[in-house]
């Protein structure tokens, strides 16, 4: 059972309670055994989350929720840290310098395993990076990752709202939606359900049950294609529009 879209305390609007070990504990309590955190435009919490996940016996993917120049949110997933790091550096360089306003979005703390604040990200993370949707998807793939359009059935920051339709010639094996089945235009893509949790109690409210040989990107792709008895099936435990 996987929840592959969880925000940490680093994300704007992410509650301070979203610390690595707390997230891992909440995931275990929700019956989840595979997680990914996907902070907005930052991979700074990934390494510590990998440790917390391992400690709790959870499978882990490196993730990020990138906001493209067109204000489309795209999830980037990686098996390996080097590929993820390279991708995260590209995003970091493309993030505008505009300062975060803590009064509006809260502080953006990077914390360690013991919840000590290491630093606060001064730039506004909920902002569009200077890379177009196609550039972001291509960079994810170049670094060996998997691109998944986020919450495509949502008005705010969804692919269809921002870009009208799926760019011609672009296909995805997994696409995240929040409310229901995938809208038309995504071809044979399989729906991915995740909580998009910004607070502990939301972890696991939407999950995907993967029947796979191992918790890897390759197996996710095969599950999306229904290869050899593999599958990816959505379970919505608690309705929500976010």
């Amino acid at each position, binding site marked *: 059972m996987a929840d592959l879209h969880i925000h940490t305390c680093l994300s704007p609007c992410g509650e301070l309670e979203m610390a690595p070990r707390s997230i891992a504990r909440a995931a275990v309590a929700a019956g989840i055994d595979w997680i990914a955190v996907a902070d907005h435009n930052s991979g700074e919490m990934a390494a510590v989350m990998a440790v917390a996940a391992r400690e709790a016996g959870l499978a882990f993917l490196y993730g990020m929720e990138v906001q493209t120049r*067109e204000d489309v949110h795209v999830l980037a997933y990686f098996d390996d840290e080097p590929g993820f790091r390279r991708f995260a550096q590209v995003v970091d360089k493309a993030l505008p310098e505009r300062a975060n306003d803590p009064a509006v979005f809260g502080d953006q703390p990077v914390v360690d395993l013991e919840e000590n604040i290491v630093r606060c990200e001064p730039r506004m993370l909920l902002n569009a990076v200077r890379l*177009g*949707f*196609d550039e972001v998807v291509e960079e994810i793939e170049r670094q060996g990752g998997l691109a998944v359009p986020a919450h495509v059935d949502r008005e705010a920051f969804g692919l*269809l*709202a*921002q*870009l*009208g*339709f799926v*760019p*011609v010639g672009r296909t995805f094996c997994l696409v995240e939606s929040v409310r229901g089945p995938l809208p038309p235009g995504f071809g044979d893509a399989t729906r991915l359900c995740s909580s998009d949790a910004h607070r502990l109690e939301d972890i696991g409210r939407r999950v995907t049950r993967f029947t796979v040989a191992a918790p890897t990107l390759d197996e996710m792709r095969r599950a999306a294609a229904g290869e050899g008895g593999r599958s990816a099936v959505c379970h919505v435990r608690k309705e929500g529009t976010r």
Partner: protein
Amino acid sequence: MKLGELARDLGWETVVEGRGLDRDVSGGFVGDLLSHVLAGARPGEVWITIQHHANVVGVAQVADLAGVVLAHAVDVPDSVVAKAREAGVTVLRTGETSFVVCGKLYERGVGRRTC
């Protein structure tokens, strides 16, 4: 008024000539959310946007717009130029803001109701 005349009067750069310059402009639409433009723009209108993903061309085509004006001096990617050439969609460009472009169009009577 024809799109070509407006382009000349207002000093817009022609990125892709397309088939729209001779069309009468029936009105204007401004927006950067392509789903919103698809839902709201009407045939023959000129569309002002800062969005410059190649899907802009598809939207202009589907909505049968007279042409697209890319405002704010955005960089036009090759993918937009290639798609617009293929589809015959007129793409213009200006350094002015969407707000100013709309104001100038309105001054010239575009989208203004006459009674």
